[in-house]
């Protein structure tokens, strides 16, 4: 989706403002939202791709206005409804429906130190032949899917060189929409800064982007 989340290369957001001695959470509710996302996610009713897409799909003005954990709150609320773990009426009232059956939480406190997440859940050991090898020239496809994708706009149509093969991972474009895993190789592809941005970029600099087989053509 050509959404506002796909920010690489935009120029009008102003300077970066680091905050000295920044706390992990700026308010108690941020920590609760963070933890609620982890604990609800432990039910494995949605993939990390579906979760990311839920945030991307916020109306653009809201996406830019809302803080990080506000977006997480919106995402988990919507995913709970989509996955039928809770109803919208329950979330609005904060009370279980009369016919709600009490469950046993998947994530208990003693399992928190052992938690793993998206990376491990997305890696596959399938023996799938890579379409490209390190050193191959590739062109990122000029594609504009209306759904989730991890091919940033600024790379589309550009030529790069495969730097390394990371192995086989679930394909986010299908996984986000429950259309199957379509596991395939992910490569780190090196794009010269001038290929991406033209003469204004340094002739030495480069951007490395992790890209799936389905995003690439031979060049």
């Amino acid at each position, binding site marked *: 989706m050509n959404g506002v989340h796909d920010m690489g290369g935009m120029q009008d957001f102003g300077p970066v403002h*680091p905050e000295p001695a920044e706390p992990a959470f700026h308010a108690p509710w941020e920590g609760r939202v963070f933890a609620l996302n982890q604990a609800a996610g432990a039910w494995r009713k949605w993939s990390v791709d579906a979760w990311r897409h839920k945030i991307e799909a916020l109306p653009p003005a809201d996406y830019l206005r809302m803080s990080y954990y506000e977006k997480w709150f919106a995402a988990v609320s919507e995913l709970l409804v989509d996955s039928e773990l809770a109803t919208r009426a329950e979330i609005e009232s904060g009370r279980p429906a009369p016919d709600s059956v009490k469950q046993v939480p998947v994530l208990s406190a003693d399992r928190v130190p052992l938690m793993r*997440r998206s990376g491990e859940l997305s890696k596959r050991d399938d023996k799938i032949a890579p379409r490209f090898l390190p050193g191959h020239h590739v062109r990122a496809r000029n594609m504009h899917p209306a759904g989730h994708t991890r091919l940033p706009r600024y790379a589309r149509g550009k030529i790069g060189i495969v730097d390394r093969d990371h192995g086989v991972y679930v394909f986010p474009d299908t996984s986000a929409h429950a259309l199957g895993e379509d596991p395939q190789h992910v490569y780190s592809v090196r794009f010269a800064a001038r290929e991406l941005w033209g003469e204004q970029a340094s002739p030495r600099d480069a951007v490395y982007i992790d890209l799936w087989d389905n995003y690439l053509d031979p060049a």
Partner: protein
Amino acid sequence: MSTAHGHDHDHQVVPSDLTLRVKALESLLTEKGLVDPAALDALIDKYQHKVGPRNGARVVARAWIDPIYKQRLLTDGTAAMAELGYGGAQGEHMVVVENTPKVHNLIVCTLCSCYPWSVLGLPPVWYKSAPYRSRAVIDPRGVLREFGLELADETEVRVWDSTAELRYLVLPERPAGSEALGEESLAALVTRDSMIGVAKVAA
């Protein structure tokens, strides 16, 4: 929530709508048996007190004093970090990129805010912000200048956009003048920002 009048009297600050809504959601999910509040407490404690940039600093210090470990770290970051006990959520597949006098690396996630939690903790607000995510790829030298880091034209800047499930950590250069320091003292020099690539390590 701010009010139009002063704050010199002791009425309670009205909780924001969001605070109430988050409380309501936690209460609902707890009553439905979908989450355990003790697990929420443990998660918050983990990222407030246990997992943070000190983990990454130990990895960096070990790589500085042990060339064989450094080689393992650059070849298979995940396995080398697991040797020191660091792995798990948002650090399952780690790639370590090395700064040298000729190459400077910078980490970003332009599409969301992917970040190596297992060795750096949760990302700072600026890393998640639109200014950083948008400009790190098109103007890395300008962004670095805002952090007070001016790179020579001859230096090659490599920006790593974390678009997949790999998580990146910069191995900064060991500072001159630190030759006599042991592992613990070296780790104390290593900052979060140097492992994202927006700063160098000073002795």
